[in-house]
Each structure stands twice: as structure tokens, then as C-alpha cells.
């Protein structure tokens, strides 16, 4: 349904990607801000989408649109096949054993709430502990606070080192037989840190806990194999990995998914409805109430095809190289960087503070130079407080970014300095 014009390696390509060819797939990257070319360094907030993805979603809607799992008619069959085909594509991408281990959601926020509510409210009671980390995105904090309030379970945090790593020195006292679930980001959107998932999974399993992963940042930027990582649940979001807004899902081991209650009730998730009770389908369908983001999951499958065409190892290598370059140049320019300084153990979201220019002012000034960065707390207020800053500036990179764009960023910092000196 979607044509793939993916980019092939050329000689001097960074990390094995032909970034010039890739950029031609992203029409938005040709935009300008005033007389400056757009330099988009905010992919950690949402990535841009290639024509292949936009076209796949539009093509589905234009020629195959119908509700999935409902219609006997031709369009109904086509829509069901496209939707279930997308599930199989996602499963393959994550190394999941079978499509039925993938629940579709409208994004990782819904996924983590489904974990906190669907698993948490049935499995947790007073005295139980939930272990998360201080670098979590609010979508992996607030749902647990809500679940803790309802169940009486206690929420505990793995602290951070000064370098922006998980401080695992106290893991022994934090992770005990009271711990029922460890829920942790795979890659921090605020600090860039990549967390040791397999190690945490083993530690969690050793005390009888399960482990859930917020892979909002990890899935777009790194190869993932859920079976090799041995994680129990893993949420991801399509719009950060070249896919449409409203796409995403939750991987879960079959027995863990079956042990969960649905979060939303409605059509298609039920088996039978009576006046006083209902029976549900089995996973993943019992979690997919109502009409799902059908065209969007079809778009997500096209995004995965695009990423597969590039090769996730190449994607990771490209970003590691750019991130290394960016860290060097920002530190040289006098910026304070929060998070690990070693590109090999982190992703491409680089949080910093430049001299005494407030991040909001910096973002406004950079925007006038065409450079789009994010300023704020990045939905990680606990991490901000840990490092004593109310906000940071954040540049983040993806498959379409170049070292030239890092130079544009660093060059634009001079303007800020000129204004505020």
C-alpha cells in the first residue's frame, strides 16, 4: 500500500545513512523561518513524517477506509487486513513472538496508563511497592501516583547520579519482595540516558516483580528485542518514530496481558453484554475498545517499513555520531549539559543551559535563526528539580539531522549571547 523509496548508503554517509536522500522524503524540512532554512532539532517532542507515511495513511483512507473487525463487505475486509497487518509489522519490529502480544493504543501515554490501571489496580494492594525512577516522563509517574492513591501501594524512586545515570547503588534496598512492578524509561527524553533494561529486568524478576518499559524514546532510536530484554510490558508511541499522531501501542507477554483488566469499556472489546455484566474478549482485543486509530496504525506500519529500510543499527550509529559532535561543540561553546556526556551510553536528546540565558529566551532567539529547539521541563519535573534547574534548552536529533545543523545551532548561540551580554 505504501511505496518504499528508502535511502541507500553512500560513501561518506554518517552512520551509514544517506541523509541527503532521507531529507528529500520530508517536505517540512524545506521550510524556512524568515530567510533561514528550518533546522528542526525537536524530534524528541515529535518527529517529522516522511511522504511514505503521510501517503500510506492518506491512501488507506482514500481507497480502503472502513471500520476494522466489523464489516463483511470488501472494504471491511481490506481495513481489517491493513490494521492486523500493522499489528504484525509492529510485532516484528519489536522482536515480539506474535502479533497478539501487541495492543494498539493512541500513544505511550495511553499505554502506560493501561499498565498502571489495567495491571496496577488488579495486582497491587497496601504494602506493595511500585519502583520507578527520577528521570521518568510524567506519563510514567502520574499514572502510578493515581494507582497508588487508589490501591494504597507505595511509589518509590530510583535516584540519579550527578552524571544523569540511574544510581543503582541502592537498588538492593529499593527493589525488594515488596516490589511488584518496576516501571522505567528505556531512554530519557530529558537527559538522553539509556537505561540498563536487561539488568533491571533480571533484578525485578529475581524478587518476583514484573518490569514495564516506557520506550517512547528508545523505540524510535535504537534496535529493540523485547524477548532478548526479557521485559514484561513495553509501551511505545508512533508520532516520535516517523508515524502519525494517535498511533502507538503496548507490547506484553501473553500471560501478563491476560492478567490485566481493560481500562476502557465499549464496542469490540466485549464477548457478550448483559444488563448486569459483560464478558470480554481475550488480549489484545479486550484492550481495544471502540473504533481504533485505524488509518494511524497503518501509517505507523509504513513508518516502521521506512525505519527497517534504513536499518535500526544504522539509525543508532548515525545518532550516536551526531550526538557526540553536538556534545563536543556545545561544551566547547560554554554550555552546561545535563545527562551523560558519553554519546555511546545515551540518545540524542541533549539538555543544556547556555550561560545565563533563560531557555525560553534562548528558544525564541534560536527560532529567529531558524533553529527549532525545545525549552521547558520536558515533562520531567523531578529530573529538573534533581539538577536544580527550572527548565533546560533541549536539542534532539533524528535520521534527517546533519552535523551542519549542529553547527547552525551552535552558531545561533552567539546571537543569544550578543543580546544578553
Amino acid at each position, binding site marked *: 500500500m505504501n511505496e518504499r523509496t528508502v535511502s541507500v548508503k553512500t560513501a561518506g554517509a554518517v552512520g551509514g545513512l544517506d541523509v541527503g536522500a532521507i531529507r528529500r522524503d520530508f517536505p517540512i524540512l524545506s521550510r524556512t523561518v524568515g530567510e533561514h532554512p528550518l533546522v528542526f532539532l525537536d524530534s524528541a517532542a515529535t518527529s517529522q513524517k516522511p511522504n511514505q507515511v503521510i501517503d500510506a495513511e492518506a491512501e488507506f483512507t482514500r481507497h480502503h477506509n472502513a471500520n476494522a473487525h466489523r*464489516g*463483511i463487505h470488501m472494504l*471491511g*475486509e481490506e481495513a*481489517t*487486513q491493513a490494521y492486523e497487518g500493522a499489528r504484525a509489522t509492529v510485532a516484528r519490529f519489536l522482536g515480539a513472538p506474535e502479533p497478539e502480544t501487541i495492543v494498539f493504543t493512541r500513544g505511550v501515554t495511553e499505554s502506560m496508563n493501561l499498565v498502571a490501571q489495567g495491571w496496577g489496580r488488579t495486582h497491587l494492594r497496601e504494602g506493595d511497592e511500585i519502583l520507578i525512577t527520577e528521570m521518568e516522563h510524567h506519563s510514567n509517574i502520574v499514572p502510578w501516583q493515581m494507582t497508588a492513591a487508589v490501591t494504597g501501594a507505595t511509589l518509590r524512586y530510583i535516584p540519579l547520579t550527578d552524571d544523569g545515570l540511574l544510581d543503582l547503588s541502592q537498588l538492593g534496598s529499593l527493589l525488594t519482595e515488596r516490589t511488584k512492578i518496576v516501571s522505567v524509561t528505556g531512554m530519557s527524553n530529558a537527559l538522553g540516558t539509556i537505561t540498563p533494561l536487561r539488568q533491571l529486568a533480571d533484578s525485578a524478576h529475581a524478587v518476583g516483580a514484573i518490569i514495564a518499559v516506557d520506550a517512547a524514546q528508545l523505540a524510535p532510536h535504537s534496535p529493540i528485542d523485547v524477548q532478548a530484554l526479557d521485559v514484561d510490558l513495553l509501551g511505545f508511541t508512533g508520532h516520535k518514530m516517523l508515524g502519525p499522531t494517535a498511533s502507538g501501542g503496548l507490547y506484553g507477554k501473553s500471560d501478563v496481558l*491476560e492478567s490485566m483488566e481493560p481500562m476502557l*469499556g465499549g464496542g469490540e472489546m466485549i*464477548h*457478550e453484554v448483559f444488563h448486569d*455484566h*459483560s*464478558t*470480554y*474478549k*481475550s488480549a489484545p482485543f*479486550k484492550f481495544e475498545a471502540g473504533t481504533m486509530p485505524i488509518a494511524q496504525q497503518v501509517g505507523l506500519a509504513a513508518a516502521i517499513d521506512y525505519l527497517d529500510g534504513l536499518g535500526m543499527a544504522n539509525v543508532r550509529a548515525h545518532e550516536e555520531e551526531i550526538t557526540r559532535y553536538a556534545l563536543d561543540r556545545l561544551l566547547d561553546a560554554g554550555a552546561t549539559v545535563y545527562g551523560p556526556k558519553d554519546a555511546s551510553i545515551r540518545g540524542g536528546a541533549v539538555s543544556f543551559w547556555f550561560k545565563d540565558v533563560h531557555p525560553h529566551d534562548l528558544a525564541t532567539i534560536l527560532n529567529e535563526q531558524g533553529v527549532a529547539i525545545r525549552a521547558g521541563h520536558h515533562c520531567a519535573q523531578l529530573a529538573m528539580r534533581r539538577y536544580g534547574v527550572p527548565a533546560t534548552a533541549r536539542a534532539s536529533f533524528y535520521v534527517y539531522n546533519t552535523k551542519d545543523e549542529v553547527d547552525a545551532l551552535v552558531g545561533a548561540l552567539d546571537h543569544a549571547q550578543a543580546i544578553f551580554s
Partner: protein
Amino acid sequence: MALDDIYKEVILDHYKNPRNKRELPGAELQCHANNPLCGDEITVFAHVDGGAVAEVTFQGAGCSISQSSASMMTEAVTGVKIGDARGLAERFRGMMAGDVEPAEDEFGDLVALKGVVQYPIRIKCAVLAWDVLQEALDGAGSASGAQPHTV
């Protein structure tokens, strides 16, 4: 795709004149399942003797595919060893998944259901009776493919 791929004579015949459609008093095995999506219902009754399906009947209501499939099934497994009945159920499922090419002599009238493969949403209808049979042979109680769970 053409309608006579699915609404073959033999299917319509089994639908209009179902074989072995009755209760079987004193049946050791009895199992029920439904597909609420379309309202198909099947109960299978079986009498086992010497490791074979001595007699098998069904009751039910639903579309032509679910009811004819049940009727054909009762003919196909009567007098067959339990292990062989299970094997046939597996291969029937394989045919409906498009993986198994049916052997005419083993499948008999059931071959007629092959055309349903082209109508994926109707496959559930064709398979329902076989789900119930398998559950019955497993000696399990009330069966439901959907593993329902109560609110």
C-alpha cells in the same frame, strides 16, 4: 471471488437439511459455544465408545456457513477414532487458514467450505462447530473460543 465459491449446492443442502441435528440423550460429551458477533450458536453432543466417536449430533442456530459446517462435521467424524477426529479438526482449521490442501477422501463434503477462505470474516462461522467438538473431546465443560471474563 464469486458467490458460488461460497454458496455451493452442498453447503446449502446441509443448511436446509441438516444431518444429525438433534439432542443426543445420555451423551457423555456435550459442549456449547457461541459467536455473539453474528449470533451463531452450536451445541455438540457425542457418544464415545472404544476410543472412537460412536455417535455425534448438534443443535444450533446461525448462518448457513456455521450450520452447514456443523452438519458436515457430524458426518465426517462419526465412527472415527478420537485421535483421528482431532487430526481432522486440525486439518480443517488448516484448510480455513489456507495452509492445508484438503484431501477429497478425508474431507468429503467439507471440501465445499474451502471457498470460505476468501471471506476471512466468515472463517469464524465455519470453524465454530469444530471448536466446540475439540472442547468436547478435551472433556472440558462449557467452551468459548473467546475466553470470556466477567465484569
